[in-house]
C-alpha cells in the first residue's frame, strides 16, 4: 500500500514533548497522495499536536516531517491549514471576505496587499462552500457552521495540495457537515491529500478512506477497511468503546 516515492506526508519517528511531558511518542505516518485520512483518538491523544508538528508550529524532540519529500519550510505553498474554530476571537473587526483572503497572505509575501485577484479567488472559494452571499458579513454574526465554512474557504484559496484540518466537524450543523464532506470528497477527486482530526467514530468509515488511530503513540494507520477494527479501537481508547460501526 505504501509505495516508496509517493508520499504526500511522511512523518518519521516523531516525538514531541511539552517541557518534560511527552505528547507524542515516536510517531510514524505515511500518507499517500490523494487520500482522505482522519486522525482519531481520545482527548489528549496528541491529535492537534501532530497537526501542529507537521506544520512546524511545535518543535519535535526527535524525528522529522516531510511533505512530498521536502521539509515543511520548503513546501509551505502547497500546504493548507484549517485551525480549530475556537482558536480565534470571532468578534475581531473584520468580514468574511477579509478572513478568506488571509489564505493568500502567504503567497503574497511581505508587505504586499491583497488586490483584485485575491478578491476573485476568495469569492470563488466562498462560492464553493456556499457562503458567497455572506462575503461582506461581519464574522461575529456567523453561526458555528458558517464560521467553519469560512475557515475552509480560507484554506481553499491557499490552493494547496495537502490540507490539514483540525476538528472541522466540531459543533457544526448537519447541513454544514454534509457540505464539508462533499467538499472533502471533491478535494480528493482532484488529487489532493486531506488530513482531518476527527472525533466522531460513527462517521469515520462513511467519510474517510484512511484512518490513523492515535493515543500518544500510533496504534495503527492505513485504509479504513484494514485498520478501523474493534481491536485497534479498544487499544486506542482503552476499552472504552462500546458500540461502533467499524470498517468490516
Amino acid at each position: 500500500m505504501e509505495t516508496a516515492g509517493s508520499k504526500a506526508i511522511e512523518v518519521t519517528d516523531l516525538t514531541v514533548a511539552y517541557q518534560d511531558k511527552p505528547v507524542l511518542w515516536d510517531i510514524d505516518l505515511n500518507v499517500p497522495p490523494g487520500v482522505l485520512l482522519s486522525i482519531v483518538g481520545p482527548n489528549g491523544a496528541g491529535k492537534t499536536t501532530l497537526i501542529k508538528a507537521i506544520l512546524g508550529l511545535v518543535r519535535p524532540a526527535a524525528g522529522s516531517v516531510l511533505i512530498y519529500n521536502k521539509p515543511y519550510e520548503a513546501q509551505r505553498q502547497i500546504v493548507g491549514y484549517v485551525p480549530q474554530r475556537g482558536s480565534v476571537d470571532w468578534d475581531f473587526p473584520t468580514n468574511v471576505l477579509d478572513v478568506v483572503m488571509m489564505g493568500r497572505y502567504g503567497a503574497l509575501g511581505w508587505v504586499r496587499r491583497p488586490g483584485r485577484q485575491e478578491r476573485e479567488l476568495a469569492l470563488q472559494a466562498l462560492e464553493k462552500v456556499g457562503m458567497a452571499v455572506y462575503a461582506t458579513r461581519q464574522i461575529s454574526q456567523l453561526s458555528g457552521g458558517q464560521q467553519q465554512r469560512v475557515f475552509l474557504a480560507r484554506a481553499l484559496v491557499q490552493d494547496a495540495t495537502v490540507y490539514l484540518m483540525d476538528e472541522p466537524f466540531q459543533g457544526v450543523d448537519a447541513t454544514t457537515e454534509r457540505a464539508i464532506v462533499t467538499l472533502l470528497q471533491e478535494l480528493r477527486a482532484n488529487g489532493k491529500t486531506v488530513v482531518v482530526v476527527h472525533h466522531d467514530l460513527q462517521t469515520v468509515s462513511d467519510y474517510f478512506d484512511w484512518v490513523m488511530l492515535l493515543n500518544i503513540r500510533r496504534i495503527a494507520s492505513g485504509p479504513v477497511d484494514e485498520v478501523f477494527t474493534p481491536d485497534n479501537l479498544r487499544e486506542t481508547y482503552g476499552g472504552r468503546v462500546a458500540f461502533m460501526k467499524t470498517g468490516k
Partner: protein
Amino acid sequence: MESLSILIHLDYTLMIVAIGAALLGTVSGALGTYAVLRRQSLLGDAISHAALPGIAIAFLLTGSKTPLILVLGAAIAGWLGTLLIMSIVRLTRIKYDSALAIVLSTFFGVGLVLHTLIQRTGNANQAGLDTFLFGQAATILERDVLTIGILGGASIIVTLVFWKELKLLVFDEDFAASLGFPTRTLDILLTSLLVIAIVLGLQAVGAVLMSAMLVAPAVAARQWTNRLRLMVFLAGCFGALAGVSGTIISSTASRIPTGPTIVLCATVVVGISIAFAPNRGLVWHRIRHQRNRRDLKMAAEAQE
C-alpha cells in the same frame, strides 16, 4: 458664539499643547487598538508603571533631564517589564493577571526607591514624580510636539507598512505561523510600538491614566465599525478628540488638571459609543428587541 469665543481664547501656547495632546491621542488610540484586540488592555498599565525605574536610572546614569534620554530609559524599563511578565507566564503556573500586577507594582516600587535616592541628592524634586504620575500636558513645547510627531508618526507608518502581517498576527497567530510569518518577531514589533506610544503618552496623561488612553479610544471605535481599518482610524480620531477637548476644557477654568480631563473626555466618547452606536449600541439593541417582539406579536395575532 460659544465656540467662537473659545477659538479666540486659543492662544499660541494652548494651541501647541492642544496639537501635542491631539498627536498623542492619535498615536495611543491607533496603537491601543491592537492591545485591546489582543486582550492586553492592561499591559499598557503595567508598561507605564514599569517605566519609572527606567526614567530614574537614565537620570542617575546620565545626570541629564533631556526628554529623549528619559524616554529611552522609560522604554527600556517598560520593555523589560513586558518581557518579565511573558517569562513568568511561560515558565511558571502564575497566570497573566498576577504576573502583570506584580511587575506593575514592584517595578513602580523600585522606581520610587530610586526616586527618593535622587531626591536626597538634591537633584530633583517631587515635581518630577508628579509629572510621571499625572503627566504635564500643559507644559508641552514645540520641541516636544516635534518629538511626538516624528516618533508617533514613525510608529503609525510601521503599522501601515506591516498592516497585513499585524492583522493576521492579532486574528490568528497559528495560521500566520503556518504561512511562514515570524510571529515572534511580529509580536516583538507590535509590543515595541505599544511601548513607544506609552512612553510618549506618559508626558500628557501620566502613568496612572495612560491605560485609558490606549483602551478608551479603541473600545469606542469598535462600536462604530466592524472593519479593522476604520477601527484604527476612528480610534486615532477619538484619541485626538479627547486630547484636544480635554486640553481646552481644562484651560477654561483654573485648577482642572489636564490629564484626568483628557481621560474623562475619552470616557465620555466611550459612553456615547456604547449607548448610541448603530448596530452594536445598547439603544439600538433595545429598539431592535422591541421591534422584534412587536413583529412576533403581530404575526401571532394574524395567525389567530
